[in-house]
């Protein structure tokens, strides 16, 4: 407490400047965590490659987030598994925000490597949390005719995350000509490391309290 005059608002003793600054910093932490509905600050265990982050942010819509309680999320594939089959690739994403939010827009960004063999059909399936052998849900089919980044729209209804927040996608390749069996190994098709890692671009909004119940007029 400083010997300066009393607090202009409450008449109590005023804080010394460094005491006031420390209080302001604590207030700022509290205000930001409350504003983001977080109970504690996130611990960054897997720092993202800056180049991948910058590249991904450039892909987002240039405009700011739409007003209201809507958010945009970029989620990089945490596990890319190409060992299952030569025509197949598995992507795993951690999406706990989807547990408490309504997803209304989803796109999967894939980077096709320059050694691309002409046009190719890609089919995308949603798998159960553990694996794809049992149940998998067809999400979308896209035809790609060039290398580079491709934004593939997915049905948002197909990405409701399990309680664990894990979303597994399986990518199957086939050429337009059903007779041709020659398909280059997926490892030459998709770039999955570093700044060319696949990522999901999602738009979500907080669930209205009592969402889903008839709104009483």
């Amino acid at each position, binding site marked *: 407490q400083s010997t300066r005059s009393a607090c202009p608002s409450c008449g109590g003793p005023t804080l010394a400047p460094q005491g006031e600054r420390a209080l302001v910093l604590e207030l700022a932490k509290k205000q930001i965590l409350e504003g983001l509905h977080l109970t504690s600050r996130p611990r*960054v265990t897997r720092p*993202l490659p800056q180049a991948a982050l910058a590249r991904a942010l450039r892909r987002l819509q240039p405009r*700011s987030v739409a007003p209201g309680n809507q958010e945009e999320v970029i989620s990089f594939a945490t596990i890319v598994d190409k060992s299952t089959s030569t025509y197949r690739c598995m992507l795993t994403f951690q999406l706990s925000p989807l547990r408490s939010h309504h997803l209304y827009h989803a796109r999967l960004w894939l980077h096709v490597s320059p050694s691309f063999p002409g046009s190719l059909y890609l089919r995308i399936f949603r798998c159960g949390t553990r694996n794809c052998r049992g149940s998998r849900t067809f999400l979308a089919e896209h035809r790609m005719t060039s290398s580079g980044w491709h934004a593939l729209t997915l049905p948002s209804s197909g990405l409701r995350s399990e309680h664990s927040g894990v979303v597994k996608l399986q990518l199957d390749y086939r050429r337009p000509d059903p007779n041709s069996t020659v398909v280059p190994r997926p490892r030459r098709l998709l770039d999955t490391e570093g700044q060319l890692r696949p990522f999901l671009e999602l738009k979500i909004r907080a669930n209205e309290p009592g969402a889903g119940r008839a709104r009483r007029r």
Partner: protein
Amino acid sequence: TPTCAPETPLCCRRDHYVDFQELGWRDWILQPEGYHLNYCSGQCPPHLAGSPGIAASFHSAVFSLLKANNPWPAGSSCCVPTARRPLSLLYLDHDGNVVKTDVPDMVVEACGCS
């Protein structure tokens, strides 16, 4: 709204810029680098009651009520935010996803007497 000078007794807006580096949070808050944590403080004597520094008609309505009822009301008027704006944040969540969101009413822009 006047920005508070060190010894301003009347209702004003006290400005503080908080750099996220100072909080040790620049590893998970990607954008912006900081924000203005402003708050309202100061006295609201009767003749300032209802003067939010914006809507004079509200002030005159309250003032005439004060005169009509009694010159020294029991309750007192408080210095409160009268205009606030959202803060756009880009941050890493617990899963390492990048989230872009607008936090409503984060920055106090104007103060006034209730």
